[in-house]
């Protein structure tokens, strides 16, 4: 039986996708899991893979077309199969009233003795997928088996349309549902990422609640305050020149100031775990590991790839990884797990000769560092005026999580580390 290829939700927040390029042509044989096409989501260019094996019978949309999630973009079946009925609709029907459908209209296929055993009866209609049909009484009706399989596959039953009596979701409704009904990974990430572990949830004290409430009333959903410090980068610059001279001799990738700032930030966060935290409405989540989100400007926007465990990585590793992630970010080829799950952000506009700026917090993270350019300027050293390379760092803090003194202590540690870069390897 032919299977519809649907535009799938390939990113947590994707509502529509642009089919960039068909990787399989009409008439090509495809195996389940093979890449059919490239799809541009709201965040990246991703692969759309085959959910069934057979022959790609039809491109229902041309390359370059943008369609909503759930719409049919192609059909996989066996050679010569009549697929006119499948293509009739296009977008999935909002409901399939099976009780009213005459049994004879169902595509009943005589069982082929040689055919591989099928999980369900062959006489089933294709998966009916609704864009999150809200059950009237708030309860999703599904058979025990459908519930079990949905749990195993991570499908959200509320996003499926049941074909059984009174809309009951039965196992045939799960076939081909695939990513359409996948529980959004991002929702999971911002709430409690399955892949991320190692944190302590601390319930809010009354004082903390009051601070959160009062400050939010005053300034907006995230009551932000800003701390600025000027860091002497002379020694970092010297260290970087020495390192990069060496890297050049060894033909290894160079280290940027930003890499050094990320490393120093990660190490400073390990000393100030109060700043390495997420606001979670009823509690604060203190992460045990440091994952630094790094703002990368891309065409029409920005994205924050994450350097995981930045505190444990060498400068050279951070340098290579940030370069690679930024490159793929600009090509929009990041996987969702590569740009979610950070615990603190760094944004750097130094290359644009910005002296100082304030960055907007990336919730649920509680802080972000805004890095200005490194400028040579006269400063007092004792009673002498000397020329030093200086950099202004501004930290935006979510006041519900980080108090002034807490943020200041973190920033002081960061400043000391950068001014004494041996601390980075200590």
């Amino acid at each position: 039986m032919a299977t519809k290829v649907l535009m799938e939700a390939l990113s947590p927040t994707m509502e529509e996708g642009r089919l960039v390029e068909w990787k399989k042509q009409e008439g090509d044989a495809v195996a389940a899991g093979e890449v059919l096409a490239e799809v541009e989501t709201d965040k990246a260019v991703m692969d759309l893979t085959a959910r069934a094996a057979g022959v790609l019978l039809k491109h229902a949309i041309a390359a370059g077309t943008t369609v909503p999630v759930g719409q049919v973009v192609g059909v996989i079946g066996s050679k010569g199969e009549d697929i006119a009925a499948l293509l009739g609709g296009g977008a999935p029907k909002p409901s399939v009233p099976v009780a009213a459908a005459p049994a004879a209209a169902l595509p009943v296929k005589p069982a082929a003795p040689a055919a591989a055993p099928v999980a369900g009866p062959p006489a089933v209609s294709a998966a009916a997928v609704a864009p999150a049909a809200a059950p009237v009484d708030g309860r999703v009706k599904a058979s025990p088996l459908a519930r079990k399989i949905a749990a195993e596959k991570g499908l959200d039953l509320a996003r499926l349309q049941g074909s059984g009596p009174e809309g009951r979701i039965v196992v045939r409704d799960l076939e081909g549902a695939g990513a359409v009904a996948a529980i959004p990974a991002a929702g999971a990430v911002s709430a409690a990422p399955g892949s991320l572990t190692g944190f302590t949830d601390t319930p809010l004290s009354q004082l903390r609640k009051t601070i959160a409430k009062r400050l939010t009333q005053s300034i907006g959903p995230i009551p932000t305050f800003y701390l600025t410090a000027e860091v002497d980068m002379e020694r970092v610059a010297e260290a970087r020149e020495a390192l990069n001279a060496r890297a050049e001799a060894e033909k290894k990738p160079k280290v940027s100031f930003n890499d050094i700032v990320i490393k120093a930030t990660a190490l400073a966060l390990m000393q100030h775990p109060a700043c390495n935290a997420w606001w979670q409405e009823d509690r604060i989540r203190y992460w045990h590991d440091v994952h630094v989100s790094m703002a990368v400007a891309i065409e029409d926007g920005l994205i924050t790839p994450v350097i995981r465990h930045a505190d444990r990585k060498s400068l050279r590793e951070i340098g290579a990884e940030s370069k690679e992630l930024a490159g793929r970010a600009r090509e929009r080829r990041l996987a969702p797990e590569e740009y979610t799950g950070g615990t603190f952000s760094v944004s750097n506009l130094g290359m644009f000769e910005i002296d100082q700026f304030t960055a907007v917090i990336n919730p649920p993270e509680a802080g972000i560092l805004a890095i200005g350019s490194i400028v040579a300027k006269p400063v007092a050293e004792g009673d002498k005026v000397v020329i030093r390379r200086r950099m202004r760092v501004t930290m935006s803090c979510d006041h519900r999580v980080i108090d002034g003194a807490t943020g200041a202590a973190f920033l002081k540690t960061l400043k000391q580390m950068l001014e004494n870069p041996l601390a980075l390897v200590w």
Partner: protein
Amino acid sequence: MPVMTYRDALNAALREEMARDPDVFLMGEEVGVYQGAYKVSRGLLEEFGPNRIVDTPITELGFAGVGVGAAMVGLRPIIEFMTWNFALLAIDQIINTAAKIRYMSGGQVGCPIVFRGPAGAALQLGAQHSQCFEAMYAHIPGLKVIMPATPADAKGLLKSAIRDDNPVVFMEGEMLYNTKGEVPEGEHIVPIGKAEVKRAGEHVSLICYSKTVASCLKAAEQLEAEGVSAEVLDLRTIRPLDLEALFTSVSKTHRAVIAEEGWYFAGAGAQVVDELQQGIFDELDAPILRVTGADVPMPYNKYLEKAAKTSPERIVAAARKVLYLE
């Protein structure tokens, strides 16, 4: 393998077990000179004599009691009821004595007895002679209940029943006596409590026993024409139930229909449903449906009787329903 009738398969089992064990004897109305109301004991009086093939008066409670007493002192009686409808008169001996004596004697006294005879409706025998009592006996702890569907199972299970050291209720089918099938010669034993897949399938389990096995096989053929692969699971023994076979089949198909001849309320199929929902709830893709006899005294009128009975058509309809095909 020889082909024989269900009747002759039972006859072979009786003959072989009586020849094997001198403690085995048969007692009931018309079992001797008349050779059985349904000729199951044909030739046995001649072969084993009147001490072991015993004709009784029309006294079900009396000869059932004689049988229970004989079993308590070490013999292995087979008590034939002309039909299980008449065993209603003997039920005190079956339930209150045979089923209880091992327990009430603290294990000192056993009761290796077989109560056997035809059960269920035949054709136009009226409300009092067309009844299914397997659920009633299966309800009683201490009784085993066997309902074979084929000649081979009839022979193999009757031999197991005779050799069992506890009371066994063995229910035959009047409409089955003339059915034919291959039966292994000689020592053919079918263990008590083992179901059998009579036809393998993928999409729905048709669970049945006794006469409904044939109905389910017919239903499976009709379903095959619609592209549905139905598995026919013959329970063979009602108590103890073969849970492993039930769970295996329904875990594979995820949908089940139970076909039984008896009444709906608290029928044997209700127990099967309960075991399935407790044991493999997460495997079910649809409610389990039961196809039963109509919840009325069996009508005498031919057409009403037909309508009241479990039929392949009603099994097909139930299967389509659990497959969400209608």
